[in-house]
């Protein structure tokens, strides 16, 4: 007895893209609808659609305005978005190793202090999570995961860091994430994974897909070094669980 689905808003992103917005907030139900619409478009392509970009709350649909116009495409997208969500979708499940704390996660101690508990407890809470790749964006392979336990929700840092390491596992707001390339971040750094979610000259170049499930497990610093070397050589490292 599913509640009727409210129609998404169609927002113009210029003359060659439509933002199909299901919610203004980070919202798990909305994200499921985003991913469902994305999969439908992959299965039943609409002529003129060139690329889709799922995010937490909306699907950005790039299109060629010489092939289909805003009104015609918008109507088709509303129709697809109105279809009931599939009961179950086969999703891939990944287990991702993380070296927590110390030089790998320089904010672990502070996060524990802020939340009045121990670093081990923070790690235990983080690896207990069953996460979903809600979106990949910002920089190649930066995977935003939903499903962070409420007790780990923290505002972002007041002063974002200009450079954080490749492979950083961090938390920010209601999210946790896997950052592939070194770059700026305002999140709290808990650890690092040797897994490359983006690596050229490897098949696949991008490891994770929006919608994939992810859980984390603990490795020590020595294992990190070994696995990091193997990953640099093109090994995937993350374990793909049987469906």
């Amino acid at each position, binding site marked *: 007895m599913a509640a009727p689905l409210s129609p998404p808003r169609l*927002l*113009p992103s210029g003359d060659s893209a439509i933002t199909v917005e299901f919610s203004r907030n980070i919202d798990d139900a909305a994200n499921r609808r985003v991913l469902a619409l994305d999969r439908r478009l992959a299965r039943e392509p609409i002529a003129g659609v060139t690329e889709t970009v799922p995010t*937490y709350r909306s699907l950005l649909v790039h299109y060629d305005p010489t092939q289909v116009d805003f009104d015609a495409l918008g109507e088709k997208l509303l129709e697809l978005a109105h279809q009931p969500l599939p009961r179950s979708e086969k999703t891939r499940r990944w287990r991702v190793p993380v070296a927590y704390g110390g030089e790998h996660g320089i904010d672990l101690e502070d996060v524990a202090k802020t939340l009045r508990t121990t670093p081990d407890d923070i790690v235990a809470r983080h690896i207990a999570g069953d996460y979903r790749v809600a979106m990949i964006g910002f920089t190649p392979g930066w995977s935003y995961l939903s499903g962070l336990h409420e007790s780990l929700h923290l505002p972002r840092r007041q002063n974002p860091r200009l450079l954080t390491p490749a492979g950083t596992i961090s938390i920010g707001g209601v999210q946790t994430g896997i950052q592939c*390339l070194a770059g700026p971040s305002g999140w709290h750094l808990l650890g690092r994974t040797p897994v490359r979610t983006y690596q*050229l000259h490897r098949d696949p170049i991008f490891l994770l897909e929006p919608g994939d499930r992810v859980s984390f497990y603990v490795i020590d610093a020595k294992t990190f070094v070994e696995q990091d070397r193997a990953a640099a050589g093109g090994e995937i490292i993350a374990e793909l669980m049987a469906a």
Partner: protein
Amino acid sequence: MSKLVVSAIGPASSVQDGGRVGAQRYGLTPSGAMDRLALAAANCLAGNALFAPGIEVGPFGVAFTARDGAVRLGLAGAPRNADAAGRGIAWDTSVTLADGETLKLGMARGGSFSYLAIEGGIAGEPMFGSLAVNARAGLGSPYPRPLQAGDELRVAAASSAAERRIDLPAAAGGPIRVVMGPQDDEFARDEIDLFLGSEWKISATSDRMGYRLEGPVTRHLHGHNIVSDGTVNGSIQIPGNGQPIVLMPDRGTSGGYPKIATVITADFGRFAQIPAGTGFRFKAVSMAEAQAEARKFAELLRSLPNRLRPIESFDLNIDALQDANVAGAAVSAVDAGTWQIPSPAGALTQDQSGQRPYSKRTRT
């Protein structure tokens, strides 16, 4: 196979093409030429597919030398003084460098980016179907970074095809047209009026990721944080300080600032060419108008091969060039040092007077 060697180069010059499609869902931005029409015109002159990889040359002067054989090039985009081994070269034309000859290009005038297409394209390893440089993602070929002096591009040996020029329509002027949204409802009517009514300048800190705009502060209704959503080329986001940033081809694929409006496809290249410090305005248009303009722009791209014209061996007719200049070319026709023939000069060949811009004194 010939080589094109970078003899001298400034920042912000890189190999670009039509960009990569299909990987924005993984956070990989499309990159590609800032001014697609200019890249396409250069490729057309070189006899290539419209969006074959070419060299996007930033505002400063550059020099390229042909090695191990002749190299044929197409020049388009922001005009510059051009000199090939002492020969003055008109803009919007093709030119062949003999082995060992150097092409020198001066500073860009009336724009920021010029395009150098190479007949036969550039040898490289495409990633997601593109050689376009995206330095942050370590992508691009043959160098995953902006070009530096000493870089060598492997290119096809020049054919013996006759040199050509291309007749481009006079550059459109006027405000940069935008479609409002996707988050214009995050701004009060007064703020939108201020955005559309003000003169803006592009900050010198702009790059291929984003153009920062200088002008009045635009205030948000509900704060500057939204939940990240997808971006496009031309998204105009308003961060916390109220100074707009227009997202360019190396943008992040998602962003968490409200986007007040989006530059239309037909005006994006023209916007990308506005030099830092030059004033301009925005104008809101309807979706129907923006999409009609996008179709016209696609038609213009398709028409480029029909706009090629032969160049004949000629001497320079200064009078005709000055006429061409008066007729509305944005650049000075006669520069100190090097000859310059502004692109609209070709239009005069159809002039009722029958007067040609190039005299044929040397051929008689």
